[in-house]
Structures are given as C-alpha cells and as structure tokens.
C-alpha cells in the first residue's frame, strides 16, 4: 500500500514541531563518517552481574541488531539539525543537564573538540533515546549490550581471551582524552561490533534497573552491597559498568558517556505498520 519511496525510510514521520520538518533519517550508509550500519547479534544468554533476590536464572537474549559503531558527532549533528528541541540551547534541563553537548562549539557546530567521526558524548539518556527513535531504532537493553560486549576478538566468550581484558583494563587506566578518537579505528569484536570497549561508556535502555539487592535501590550505590551479590567477583569491568549505570540519572551527561542503537532482528508487530506520513 505504501509508496516505494517511503518504504525505504521505515519510520518516516512528518513533524511540525517548532516549524521544522523533522523528517526521516537517511537510509543506512548515507551519513558522513561512520554509517548507521548494524550487525546481527545471535540469540544467546546473558548472566547478570548481580544475583537477583528473586530469581537466579541466566537471561535469554533474543537475536537483535546492534550498531557497529557508537553514534558519532556527525550523525548526532543531523539529528539536532532536524530536531531543534534537542539542540544545546533549546533542550529542557529535565532531559539533559547543563553539560549537554558541552564539547560542541555551538548548537549546530560540533567544532574541533567533537570531530565528525568521534563518538558523541555529553548526551543524556533521554537524548540518546530520542536519537534512536529518530533513526528508527532503539537503545539496547543491558542484557543485549552485555551480550554483545561479552565476546572476545576472535571467539564468543571474551573472558577466555585475555587480550580483550588487557585492552579493557588499559582503557580504564588511561585518562579520558580531551578529544575522543575516531570510531573507525576501533577493533571489531567477534560479532563485528566496534569500540564497544575502549572508546566511551554507553547508555542502555534500562540503565535505571533496580539492582539485585531486594529492591532497595540505595544499597546498590555502595560497593559492599553491590559486590556482595556479584556472581563473578573477577568481572571487574562488569562491576564498573554496573556501578556507573547505578550512579546515573536520566538527564546526566558526561565526557565519556555516549551510546549506540539497536533494533529488533524481526521487526516487532506494529513497528512496520506505522502510518505513512501525510504529505
């Protein structure tokens, strides 16, 4: 029923907000620098870092698609060009704190501190989510992200390959650079995902999960309470990620926190049946 030109755009919605046409994203591959290219992550299992108070089974993770690269400044620029409410000077403090896009030179000018192919940082969870929606995608869940991040360079289990952990800890030890490196330099892991470790921390959809301490969120903020539930106390990197997520509020932005997008492998019911825009 839909015209062919619209099919290619997936979620082409017309928006009249603030007098701008907030149209559909370009098809994958058309953006400068890194593309919105995605790789399939096969079905698998995620073992949460913490034991849960009410269930200890590993979580099955359905197959899904994940961006090869973290979202870059170049890609994010196109988003804010089309969506004025997410420009630095326009955004509501409720959705992004005062350091939102702090390293950009201006509203529509990433500038020298934010090169087009470097990962965008200083973005909030709300902003990351809005970008993902605009791109016709979504944020990965913790389970999906950890599933994709758990493999090594050459095999499905990163913990069996010491090289990945060495690189990971070396990254932790390095001070954050003033200017993030290009995503294109990042080495691919077994699934073909690049820079999931070693570039920036990344937002996940359910960053605000309650930790496995019986529902008392505050106990998750203390090392002893968090680590006492750890399944694998040797998983220092997992602990760091959990600690970071549990410390964040949804409008927080930092110099080392970016994101990448995911998508269901089989489009969810209704996702492709959105109404075509009235043009």
């Amino acid at each position: 029923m839909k015209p062919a030109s619209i099919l290619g755009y997936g979620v082409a919605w017309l928006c009249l907000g603030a007098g701008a046409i907030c149209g559909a994203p370009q098809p994958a591959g058309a953006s400068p620098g890194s593309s919105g290219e995605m790789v399939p992550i096969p079905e698998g299992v995620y073992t949460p870092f913490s034991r849960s108070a009410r269930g200890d089974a590993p979580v099955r993770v359905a197959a899904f698609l994940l961006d090869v690269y973290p979202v870059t400044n170049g890609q994010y620029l196109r988003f804010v060009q089309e969506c004025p409410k997410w420009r630095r000077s326009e955004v509501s403090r409720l959705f992004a704190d005062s350091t939102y896009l702090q390293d950009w030179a201006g509203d529509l000018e990433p500038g020298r501190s934010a090169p087009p192919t470097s990962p965008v940082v200083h973005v909030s969870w709300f902003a990351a989510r809005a970008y993902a929606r605009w791109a016709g995608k979504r944020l990965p869940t913790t389970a999906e992200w950890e599933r994709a991040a758990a493999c090594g360079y050459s095999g499905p289990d990163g913990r069996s390959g010491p090289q990945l952990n060495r690189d990971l800890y070396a990254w932790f030890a390095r001070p954050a650079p003033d200017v993030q490196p290009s995503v294109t330099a990042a080495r691919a892991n077994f699934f073909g995902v690049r820079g999931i470790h070693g570039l920036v921390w990344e937002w996940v959809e359910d960053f605000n999960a309650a930790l496995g301490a019986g529902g008392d969120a505050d106990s998750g903020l203390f090392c002893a309470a968090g680590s006492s539930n750890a399944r694998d106390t040797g998983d220092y990197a997992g602990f760091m990620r959990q600690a970071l997520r549990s410390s964040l509020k949804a409008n927080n932005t930092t110099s080392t926190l970016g994101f990448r997008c995911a998508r269901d492998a089989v489009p969810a019911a209704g996702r492709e049946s959105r109404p075509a825009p009235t043009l």
Partner: protein
Amino acid sequence: MTAMSLAAAAAGYSGQAAKPSCPCCKEEAAAPFSKESIYQLDARFTDDAGRTFAIGALRGRPVVLDMFFASCGSACPITVTDMLSIQSRLPAALRARVTFVLVTFDPARDTRQVLADYRRQRLLDGQWVLLRGDDDGIRELAALLGVRYTREPDGTFSHSNVLTLLNDKGEIAYQRVGLNEGIGRICAAVAANGG
C-alpha cells in the same frame, strides 16, 4: 472527573490524536509546560476506565504520584495506604484539589480490569487516577522520577519506593524516598503547594 476533563481540554489535548506525530519533536500543548515539568513527557497512558490519558492533563492541581504494581505483596500496598492517609488528613478544601495517581510497572498483568478491581478493593475514590502505559512510557516516567525498577524472572518487580508530589505545573515539589518517613512531611509539602 469533570475537573480532569476540563484540565485536559485546557492543556490542548482534545483532538490531538489526529495530528501527525513525530518521535523526536513532540508537538507542544497549547500552552507549553515549564522546562522543569514532567508533563513534557509525551507518553500516553490509559486509565482503569479504558480512557486515553495524557499525563499533562493533571496540570493545574497538586498530584501525589506513586509507581506500583497491583500484585505487589510488600511495599506497594503500604504506600497506597499512606496515600489514603494523606488524603484523609488533608483539610477538606485542599483534599478536593489533590489528585492521587498510581502508575503500574506491570501493564501486561495490570489490565484495565485489574486496575478497576484494585480501585474497588482499596476504596479509591474519584480523586484517584490509575494508569497503565506502554513499556517505553513507563521507563521514561520512572527515569524522570528517579525510580529504579526491574522485572524479575518470577514476574514481580523490584523497584525503589518513591512517592512524588508534583505541583500544579507538574514539577517535582517533594519526594519521599523509602517507607520509613511517615506522612507528616509530604502532607506539609502538599499543603505548601496546594495554595
């Protein structure tokens, strides 16, 4: 619920469904919400009568809001009891202005009927609004309120216990965190924001 309908109309929500929608630049209500208002949240909810409910329709009155799930056997019933206590303790004039809102974490099991049953069982009067939404909207609302939650493998929800007071603009005026504080402070906060 007449006041509610009026508020909804005033907020410009009537007839909005026909407008084109966009996932990034949400159309604004007739009068924009304040930059600190959680009513900027664009999620749509459904109440226990099956009616679509934009959360911005709560504008114009103090709101005491809790996120819960109906099958909870621990903290949620206590919080609802506290909310009922707050309601009965308020002076009559103020009581008539305050709306009590429950938003479920569990839209899969908390169907319209389950919420309607919950209203009956807990004797929640017309000042109460019971809402269910989609997972997206629930996660965004929780994020705005600073509520953490996880669906456990057994189908229950672990969640932080945060009772929120919103002022008439939908800005967070006070939050009670945990269950040990009693209702004195939040009652005082309601009175301070009820003028």
